[in-house]
């Protein structure tokens, strides 16, 4: 993990020219798949990720149904062509773990208790990966849930912070994640002030961790604005078109 590659140059800029506390360019779109009950697409840097939500619907197999709430299921999956070397399409241990932590990141936001004996299924497909896919995947899945009309306490938005070349940075890309000193992915519900996904690997003092956590939350707040805008714009566009016609 140590300094073979310089990740911060003499001007304090990162490998892709960003300042330490700068996000990658983000693009989001809601309602991109017609078959799903809700769907969304995100591009964050070179990450390209689709999410679809089906449900609430009948649980299959039926014995998994819960008597007092909806069963939330999540599958995070990477396309074989999403990374440099072809990835086997069979779910890896990493993907299984990420499916779990993403599900647990979204779970506190959803009013699952309103729909007993049903399931809500979230599918996240990473079409291209460039670091931070669990975070971007969480962000886009929350959009798909809202698009499906599933009642939520808040949107969930995720972003990582970390340490590269001794500097705390926001929204790590692939090389920063692999070569840096630490990575702290965080999922946040900004209106509730609650953190629902938190992981870390690397080496940080408690103080550095505290700063990374705050930096990640700041990043989340910025992405939250894009998220809300993506949801609104779908409807505002129709409204504006209509009003345009009326003029």
């Amino acid at each position: 993990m140590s300094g073979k590659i310089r990740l911060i140059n003499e001007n304090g800029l990162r490998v892709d020219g960003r300042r330490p506390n700068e996000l990658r360019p983000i693009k989001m779109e809601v309602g991109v798949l017609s078959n799903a009950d809700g769907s969304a697409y995100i591009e964050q840097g070179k990450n390209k990720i689709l999410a679809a939500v089906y449900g609430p619907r009948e649980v299959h197999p039926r014995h998994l149904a819960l008597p007092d709430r909806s069963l939330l299921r999540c599958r995070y999956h990477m396309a074989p062509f999403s990374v440099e070397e072809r990835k086997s399409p069979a779910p890896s241990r990493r993907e299984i773990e990420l499916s779990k932590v993403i599900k647990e990141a979204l779970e506190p936001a959803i009013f699952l208790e309103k729909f007993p004996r049903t399931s809500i299924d979230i599918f996240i497909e990473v079409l291209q990966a460039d670091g931070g896919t669990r975070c971007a995947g969480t962000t886009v899945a929350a959009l798909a849930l809202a698009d499906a009309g599933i009642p939520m306490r808040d949107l969930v938005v995720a972003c990582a912070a970390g340490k590269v070349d001794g500097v705390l940075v926001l929204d790590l890309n692939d090389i920063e994640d692999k070569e840096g000193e630490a990575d702290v992915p965080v999922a946040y519900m900004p209106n509730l002030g609650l953190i629902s996904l938190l992981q870390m690997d690397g080496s940080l003092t408690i103080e550095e961790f505290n700063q990374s956590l705050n930096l990640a939350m700041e990043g989340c707040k910025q992405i939250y604005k894009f998220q809300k805008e993506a949801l609104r714009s779908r409807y505002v566009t129709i409204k504006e078109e209509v009003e345009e016609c009326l003029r």
Partner: protein
Amino acid sequence: MSSIMVSRIRQKQIAQMVASGKRLDGRGLKDYRPIKVETGIIEKAEGSSRALLGKTEVVVGVKVEIGDPFLDRPDEGVFTVNSEFVPLASPEFEAGPPSEESIELARVVDRGIRESKAIDLEKLCLIPGKKVYVIFIDIYVLNHDGNLIDASSLASLAALLNTKIPVYVVEDNEVKKTNDYIPLPIKNLPVSITLANISDKLIVDPWLEEEEAMSARLTITFDKDNKISAIQKGGPGALTPQQIMEAAHMAREKAEELRKMLVKT
């Protein structure tokens, strides 16, 4: 949901107790259950241990083989962590492919060892790019009574400290096993501490019923220099940033205690 159903009234009792700063089993919020660690319990394994955390029981076996290094780390040995939730450990465990929980457990333990650089992998290279030591850490959960992560990471570290690796000599670009054994080179001592959020209060080392009643758990792994090596939030709920920092400070204190205890045994 990995454990037996706890009645609603029991969950409420647990929550009320915790809210008033106490626990049903008489522990304080920051108390671990009695910890017992034994090593060298499996002679056929190069290293082994058994850890008891109250009634939670975990056995770890370490096997050592020779194999290929990773392409991007030709000069380093390799290790993997695997865990098995064997069906005899809980009515909730089933035979078959590993569950999400079991995969998460192994990956959290792996991260603590890897990120703290506990195993000196550079000393485990025999022929660069060709032959290195491969260390298999297998976690066997024998009785599930909550907080499997801490029991497993403690048992894993104890087993690694107990591991002796066979000495190989390199002749004509081939490795040959000798009859000598040396201790596995260990550089760091990662200790994971798991806290649970119940009634918006943090407790350490949740047992099974507390895991049923908790909204979220947080595992923080500290290395010997009090630096954080790994974190994992689990469970369906969420935490405030203040709770997370409070947890980090609590965990640092407990990690030191546990490390001291482990080194003594």
